[in-house]
């Protein structure tokens, strides 16, 4: 029995849970002196995935449900290829589910036309895994893009907003504004991606693997940035990530996608306290 791999995974899961509890305790003390993250138990639901199923050549999601309330950060975790990024595409209405509904601020977006969906997307900011900055545009033009597309702001107002957002993500506007994405490091590109995503002051921010491919220090910077967005601006966020350590630091709720379904949805504390074998194996493997 001592060599049972499942048991080894569960043992590792228990030690990981202990480490996570310590992490959560450290995070609580780290927030002392600053505004605590607001409680949102009674808040209105901003993003709601309601019994959603989706299949292409094979089933991707089956009867998936979860909600993100106002100001919450919900992290979606799970193995590679389980459809985590697909959920973000459903929220953005880039995909339409076969069954179920996706509601944004109470409005079902699954039956919207393409043009109506473009309007709904203006409520959201998205940060892509590779930042997806427009490489033919400078940093300034990238961040200004949604403002030029969807607002009547004049050039001075746009420049002011771009500077504000770049400063928010801890970038020096004078240094980076005229640079092209190819001239930036991976972490800087991600931060510009966040600045572009939040340029229009969206209600919802979506992150697809925001810390993948980054060194530990930059990972911590991006994680803090997402927490800062929640704390200071009250933005509702949905984060897809493999980085369990970051997830436990930033998330209000965690959804575990397994076998095409949400097998766990709860707070990081609840997640670290569960005895579910797959969850423990996943946490153990994810932290290995």
């Amino acid at each position: 029995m001592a060599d049972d791999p499942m048991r080894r995974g569960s043992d590792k899961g228990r030690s990981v849970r202990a480490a996570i509890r310590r992490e959560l305790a450290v995070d609580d003390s780290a927030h002392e002196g600053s505004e605590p993250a607001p409680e949102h138990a009674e808040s209105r639901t901003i993003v709601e995935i309601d019994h959603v199923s989706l299949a292409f050549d094979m089933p991707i999601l089956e009867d998936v449900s979860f909600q993100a309330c106002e100001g919450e950060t919900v992290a979606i975790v799970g193995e590679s290829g389980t459809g985590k990024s697909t959920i973000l595409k459903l929220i953005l209405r880039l995909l339409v589910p076969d069954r179920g509904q996706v509601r944004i601020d109470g409005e079902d977006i699954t039956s919207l036309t393409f043009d109506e969906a473009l309007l709904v997307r203006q409520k959201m900011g998205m940060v892509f895994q590779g930042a997806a900055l427009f490489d033919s545009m400078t940093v300034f033009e990238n961040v200004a893009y949604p403002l030029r597309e969807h607002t009547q702001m004049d050039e001075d107002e746009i420049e002011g907003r771009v500077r504000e957002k770049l400063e928010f993500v801890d970038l020096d506007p004078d240094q980076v504004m005229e640079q092209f994405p190819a001239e930036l490091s991976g972490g800087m590109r991600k931060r510009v991606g966040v600045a572009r995503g939040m340029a229009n002051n969206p209600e919802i921010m979506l992150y697809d693997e925001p810390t993948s491919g980054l060194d530990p220090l930059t990972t911590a910077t991006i994680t803090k940035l997402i927490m800062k967005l929640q704390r200071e601006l009250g933005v509702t966020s949905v984060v897809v990530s493999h980085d369990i350590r970051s997830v436990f630091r930033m998330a209000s709720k965690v959804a575990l996608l397994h076998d095409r379904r949400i097998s766990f949805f709860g707070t990081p504390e609840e997640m670290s306290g569960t005895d579910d074998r797959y969850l423990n194996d996943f946490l153990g493997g994810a932290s290995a």
Partner: protein
Amino acid sequence: MPEFLTRLNNAAKSRVLTLQEYFVLAGKSIRFIFARPFYAQDVVQQMDEIGVKSLGIVMLTGVFTGMVLALQSSVQLKTFGATIYIGNLVSASMIRELGPVLAGLMVAGRVGSGIAAQLGSMRVTEQIDALNTLGTDPIKKLVTPRVLAALVMLPVLTVINDFIGIIGGNIIAALVVGVPSAQYWRTVWAQIAADGFTLRYFPNDFVQGLSKPFVFGAIISITACYFGLGTTGGTEGVGQATTRTVVTSSILILIVDYFITQLLLSVLTYGR
């Protein structure tokens, strides 16, 4: 149903779907020319990319095509003692056929591949998805400006190609064959006038020579955008999209050229 019939059925469905997607993209991109927002700056940038930057390659093609046409025809015409008609032959060939087709093929190679590679790279680096999430229709922002620019610039490039080709013919006619330039240009105009006029003032040769590049511009830009936007599979996919664009648009240009010629010859009053 036997397996091979099932595969045949699926392959046929896939082809029909491809055609449908191609024509939906074509329809949308042309419809969006008249719909707000107008990306005028992008259109001008694409006109520079498609038109101005293709000028060198098109002029080079034109001048050597005109020269070789004059050289080849002089050999044949000499046997009949009719070398003074070199101008007729060069102008008719350049304006009706070689000018539009060669300009189209050159632009398909240079610009079509560039568009497919650019949009393909944008697709694999999620920039197209980013446009969508920022509330912009990628067809409106990326495809329509390229299609509009190609529709405008291909005829312009063709006119330049024709003119430079006829000048190339003039050089060979004057320096190698011994036909005086004045005689050469008289026969060039005589040929244009002899082919008749549409609506009294527009030479039929010009109508034929300018309607083709308009269609070729649409073919090149829409094909390039179709394969570029449909890119999958990383950098290898970008390479495949580029190759498919050049091959497909070149073949389409040659096929469509035949049908346009057939149609125009039956509509325009040549020699009547």
